[in-house]
C-alpha cells in the first residue's frame, strides 16, 4: 500500500458503517491483486508436499499468515515435525506482537469481544492500512481514530482471497505436475527477499540477517534435516541482542 493509494481511498466521502467498509475495500484492492500469484504458488507447493485440497484451505484459513505458511510448506515432511513447524511459525509471526502493541492504543474504545475476532484478521497489509488510517484520522481530530468497519473492509477481502486462491493453487498444482522444473521454486526466495526489502532499515540493522544466512547455510551443508532454520534464526536473534548493546 503506497501513500498515494491511501490518499486515493481517503478522497472518498464516507457515510456510516457501509461507507466505512467500502472505504476499506477501496484501500486494500490494489494490494489484493498482488497476493493472488503467491496464493496460487503456495497452494501448488502445498499440493506437491502432499497436502490435499481440503488441508490447504484448512491451513490458510485457520492460520492466515502467508510468511509462516511458505516457511512451513518449505519444511513440510510426511509426517510433519509439529514442534519444528510450530516454532518456525512463532518466529516468523513474532512481528505480530509488535504490530498488535502498536495498534493497541487505538483499540481502547472497542470491547474485547470485538477486538479479539478483529485481531484474527490482522496481517501485514490490513495492519498497515488500518494503522495508517487511524493515525490520519487522529491527526484530523476524528474520534474514534480507529474505524473498525474500515479495517474489516480492508481485511476481509484479503482473508477470502487468500483462502480461495491457495485452494485453487492446490487444485491446479497436480495438473501442472512437477512445479520445480518450471522454476517455481524460485518464487519462495523471490517472495522472501521482497518481504525482507520491505523490512530493510539499513546495513547496520541487517547484520543479524547476514549472521542468520551464514550460519543457516553452513548448518544446511553440515547437518542433515531442517535444523538449519532454527540454527540460523537463533544465531541471528543472538546477534541482534548482542549488537543492540553497542548503542
Amino acid at each position, binding site marked *: 500500500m503506497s501513500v498515494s493509494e491511501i490518499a486515493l481511498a481517503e478522497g472518498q466521502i464516507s457515510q456510516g458503517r457501509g461507507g466505512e467498509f467500502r472505504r476499506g475495500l477501496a484501500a486494500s484492492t490494489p494490494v489484493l491483486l498482488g497476493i493472488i500469484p503467491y496464493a496460487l504458488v503456495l497452494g501448488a507447493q502445498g499440493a506437491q508436499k502432499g497436502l490435499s485440497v481440503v488441508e490447504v484451505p484448512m491451513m490458510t484459513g485457520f492460520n492466515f499468515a502467508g510468511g*509462516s505458511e511458505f516457511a512451513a510448506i518449505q519444511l513440510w515432511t510426511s*509426517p510433519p515435525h509439529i514442534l519444528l513447524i510450530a516454532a518456525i511459525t512463532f*518466529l516468523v509471526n513474532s512481528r505480530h*506482537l509488535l504490530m498488535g502493541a502498536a495498534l493497541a492504543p487505538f483499540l481502547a474504545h472497542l470491547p474485547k469481544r470485538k477486538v479479539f475476532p478483529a485481531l484474527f484478521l490482522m496481517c501485514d497489509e490490513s495492519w498497515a492500512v488500518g494503522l495508517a488510517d487511524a493515525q490520519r484520522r487522529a491527526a484530523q481530530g476524528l474520534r474514534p481514530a480507529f474505524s473498525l468497519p474500515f479495517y474489516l473492509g480492508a481485511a476481509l477481502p484479503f482473508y477470502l482471497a487468500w483462502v480461495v486462491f491457495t485452494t485453487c493453487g492446490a487444485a491446479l498444482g497436480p495438473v501442472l505436475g512437477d512445479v520445480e522444473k518450471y522454476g517455481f521454486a524460485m518464487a519462495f526466495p523471490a517472495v*522472501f527477499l*521482497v518481504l525482507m526489502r520491505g523490512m530493510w532499515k539499513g546495513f547496520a540493522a541487517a547484520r543479524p540477517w547476514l549472521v542468520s544466512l551464514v550460519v543457516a547455510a553452513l548448518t*544446511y551443508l553440515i547437518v542433515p534435516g531442517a535444523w538449519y532454520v532454527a540454527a540460523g534464526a537463533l544465531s541471528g536473534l543472538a546477534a541482534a541482542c548482542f549488537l543492540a548493546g553497542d548503542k
Partner: protein
Amino acid sequence: MIDPMTVLAILAMAGVTYLTRIGGYVVLRNRTLSARATAVMEAAPGCVLISVIAPDFVSKNPANLAALAITVLAATRLSMLPTVVIGVASAGALRWLMG
C-alpha cells in the same frame, strides 16, 4: 484427504499464530519494550526468512545460483509481482539452457 498429523500441525500453527496476533494487544498495550527487546523483535522475521532460503545460496546447481543472483537483484528494485515473475522465469530458462 485429511491426515490427522497434518491437522495437528495446522492447528498448532493456527494456535501459535493467533497468540502472536492477540499477544501484543494483551501483554504489551500498557508497557514499553526495552530498546534491546525491540531490536531483537524487529530483526526476527528477517532472520527466519533468510534462514529458510539459505540452502538456495549454497545450491550445487549453477543454473539455480545464477537465477538466485538475478532474483536478488530484482528484489532490491522491483515490487513483489515482477520479482516473482523474473525469479521463476530466470530459474526455468537457465535450467533449460544449462541443463
